[in-house]
């Protein structure tokens, strides 16, 4: 087996990277099958592949195990046909809650079932009887997922970047673990070079010039609308502005040969501007737009909040019926919400994907502090996080509920996390729609305040902006311009920060950390995921801050994200995490925010980290998981806070900057993005002043 040959040959690229030399040996697999014969065979086969196998014959138990030990597994293999729970349902849940790659298996090889696996987000589908050869390479799904998350992170941050330097080395051949080292190396290189465009879509430096004819634009809009139904109802609209997944999804729906995701992404940005113009400048309008469509959230538990949120938004902002009508006319909104429209699992699956590898806070801290990149970093984080969080919240609302229950029930590592989970329980039930949470339930982070104050298109971005703005305030980033850079998605920057030390002392660092966290690719793939709001950022910031400050060296190791056997790292990391979560939390936020946020963050931070204590695996993996849960938690809280924030947190962004500031910031940002997009023309829009 190749596995054996790889021992000792790993980590060629960077010795500082903590990647098991034996990768993929030690890959932690959870296999779920009600058939004991099959289960036993799989267990033996996986063991022969040198994986660390945990077998489970019931889906519910498997979910428990996954929730209890959030970072304890790298990949899940599940049978489709199980008595207590449909395998696809398990797939959904895992994707929502843990965002782990899931492989489905079945004796059924009919096209429909296999397709179902695809649409539900399975990363592979094995026909029984499963051969050991098929299992030998399942590690590629783990690697690929991380790579995509990382790439998404970078891409969304670098969309506005002018340079496009595809890195062929990035497209590592995953079939060989020897390439892993190279991949890691190239990734680091990429991070440092802060670029990253469509590496996978276009390997050419030059982007083909795309003319957006009316027809093409129509296709685009209908694709958006198609997604929009889900998006708006799930408040994932903001996602369109913050993730890479939405353009991808639109691209798929449009199915235009030769059209690249890049094309769609940049077109989408312009469309955003267009929408914003339609809805007016007031950020609240955006919220109203979304909230009006969010009145029928896919998840029943959230429906109660719709009205509340809407009222809140209406009360706090201007919701001109005109703009709303315009937006509707534009086909973006469908008031005939699809109640209970479930987000495609495919989109949901990556909600929690935080690519630990991208957590590179160490390098270039001071540079980031002073450079514009920082701003991007700060801004970018919340943006993506918003989407992510929204997605998390939305989709995980129900699962979180059960998650909380289960987590609490399990104690031990989840013991500490139970308070966190319990906290989540409340906001969770309140609904996690962007606008809904503004109705506020848990007065939380200030970032939440900013969320509702966005125009349609900018909603998601604004959420991030506000959040970031708040967070970064502590370090002196009080200018609106900073917030405006949110749209830049400085993923590159975040990615560039090597893990050694937290780049931005307090707030900046946090932001950086957060950007890394938030911009993780996983979110971006959730087109239909709801935009939960940027509230969750805060806690995440803390976590990273904590992680960074306490164990900088660990970060490096974790940056790669392949810490399958990084037990030593995880231990140290966890130790550091546990040590001073509260302390770091305080540092991370601006004084004005600390009062409100710190307590929240600390509360959230601690449980989260404690959750990871039990894990003995690489921190990178754990962190991601923690972050995911953290974000989820935070986002839920933040959302609830948002509404109340406006009233009780005068120091929050909206009050500081005002809507006009934000809008101009965004517009400025858009303008800044323009040059990067001069390859595209707007024929389909009726806008004449869109900066190009």
């Amino acid at each position, binding site marked *: 087996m190749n596995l054996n040959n790889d021992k000792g040959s790993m980590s060629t690229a960077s010795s500082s990277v903590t990647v098991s030399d034996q990768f993929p040996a030690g890959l932690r697999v959870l296999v779920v099958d009600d058939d004991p014969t099959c289960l036993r*065979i799989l267990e033996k086969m996986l063991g022969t592949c040198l994986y660390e196998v945990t077998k489970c014959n019931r889906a519910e138990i498997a979910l428990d195990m996954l929730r209890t030990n959030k970072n304890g597994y790298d990949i899940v293999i599940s049978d489709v046909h199980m008595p207590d729970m449909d395998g696809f349902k398990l797939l959904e849940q895992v994707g929502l809650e843990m965002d782990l790659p899931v492989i489905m298996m079945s004796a059924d090889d009919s096209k429909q079932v296999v397709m179902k696996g695809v649409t539900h987000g399975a990363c592979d589908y094995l026909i*029984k009887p499963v051969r050991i050869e098929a299992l030998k390479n399942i590690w590629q799904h783990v690697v690929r997922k991380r790579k995509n998350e990382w790439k998404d992170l970078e891409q969304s941050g670098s969309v506005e970047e002018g340079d496009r330097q595809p890195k062929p080395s990035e497209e590592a051949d995953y079939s060989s673990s020897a390439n892993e080292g190279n991949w890691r190396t190239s990734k680091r290189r990429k991070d440092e070079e802060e670029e990253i465009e469509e590496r996978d879509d276009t390997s050419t430096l030059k982007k083909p010039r795309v003319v957006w004819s009316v027809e093409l634009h129509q296709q685009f809009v209908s694709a958006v609308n198609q997604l929009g139904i889900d998006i708006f109802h799930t408040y994932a609209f903001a996602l369109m502005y913050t993730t890479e997944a939405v353009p991808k999804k639109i691209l798929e729906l449009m199915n235009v040969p030769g059209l690249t995701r890049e094309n769609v992404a940049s077109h989408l940005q312009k469309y955003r501007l267009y929408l914003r113009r339609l809805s007016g400048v007031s950020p609240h309008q955006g919220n109203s737009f979304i909230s009006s469509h969010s009145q029928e959230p896919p998840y029943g538990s959230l429906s109660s909040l719709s009205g509340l949120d809407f009222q809140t938004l209406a009360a706090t902002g201007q919701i001109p019926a005109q703009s709303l009508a315009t937006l509707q006319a534009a086909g973006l909104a469908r008031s005939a919400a699809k109640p209970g429209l479930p987000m495609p699992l495919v989109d949901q699956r990556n909600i929690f994907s935080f690519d630990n590898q991208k957590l590179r806070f160490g390098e270039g801290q001071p540079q980031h502090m002073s450079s514009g990149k920082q701003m991007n970093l700060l801004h970018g984080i919340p943006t993506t996080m918003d989407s992510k969080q929204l997605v998390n919240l939305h989709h995980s609302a129900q699962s979180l509920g059960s998650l909380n229950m289960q987590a609490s029930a399990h104690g031990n590592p989840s013991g500490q996390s139970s308070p966190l989970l319990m906290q989540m329980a409340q906001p969770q039930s309140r609904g996690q729609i962007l606008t809904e949470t503004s109705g506020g339930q848990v007065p939380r982070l200030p970032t939440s305040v900013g969320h509702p104050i966005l125009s349609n298109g900018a909603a998601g971005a604004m959420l991030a902006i506000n959040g970031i703005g708040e967070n970064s305030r502590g370090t002196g980033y009080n200018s609106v311009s900073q917030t405006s850079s949110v749209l830049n998605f400085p993923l590159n920057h975040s990615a560039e920060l090597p893990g050694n030390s937290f780049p931005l002392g307090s707030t900046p660092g946090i932001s950086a950390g957060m950007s890394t966290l938030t911009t993780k690719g996983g979110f971006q793939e959730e087109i239909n995921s709801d935009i939960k709001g940027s509230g969750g950022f805060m806690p995440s910031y803390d976590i990273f801050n904590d992680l960074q400050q306490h164990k900088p060296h660990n970060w490096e190791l974790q940056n790669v994200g392949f810490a399958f056997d990084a037990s030593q790292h995880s231990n140290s990391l966890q130790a550091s995490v546990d040590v001073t979560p509260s302390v770091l939390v305080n540092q991370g936020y601006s004084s004005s925010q600390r009062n409100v946020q710190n307590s929240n963050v600390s509360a959230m931070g601690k449980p989260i980290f404690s959750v990871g204590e039990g894990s003995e695996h690489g921190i990178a993996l754990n962190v991601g998981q923690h972050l995911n849960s953290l974000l989820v938690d935070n986002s839920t809280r933040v959302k609830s806070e948002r509404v109340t924030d406006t009233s009780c947190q005068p120091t929050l962004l909206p009050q500081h900057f005002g809507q006009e500031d934000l809008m101009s910031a965004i517009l400025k940002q858009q303008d800044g993005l323009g040059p990067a997009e001069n390859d595209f023309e707007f024929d389909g829009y009726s806008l004449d002043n869109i900066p190009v």
Partner: protein
Amino acid sequence: MNSNQLQHQVLYMRRSLFDQGYLDSEQLIQLEDLQDDANPNFVEEVVSLFYSDSARLIQNIEQTLSNRPVDFSRLDDILHQFKGSCSSIGAKKVKDACSQFREYCNAGNAEGCSRSFQLIKQEYETLRRRLESYFQMVKQAKAA
């Protein structure tokens, strides 16, 4: 029989199982490949597991078939599971009988299902006997 003869016997029995369609050679080899010092009798262990677990399935089929009206959907479910199990150990004939059962099931043919079920049980038991003999022979050859 001496060691050589025993080994020949083992090979012969094995060949028969394949040629007569009782066992899928590929699957058996896969299982045998999993045997190691830690699990020297892995194949036998898995086969035992199959028989003990599928006994439950057989019972379910029995019961469901005897109910009126016949719940074909449930039967199909059970058969699906059973089929999956069979393929794990490469129980070809049993698996084929299951396929036939499922066809009758999909057609809503209770009579056909009953007949197929008899065939399933027949093949199921035949295979059990054959495998038991085979494993016994394997052990003898090993000991010799």
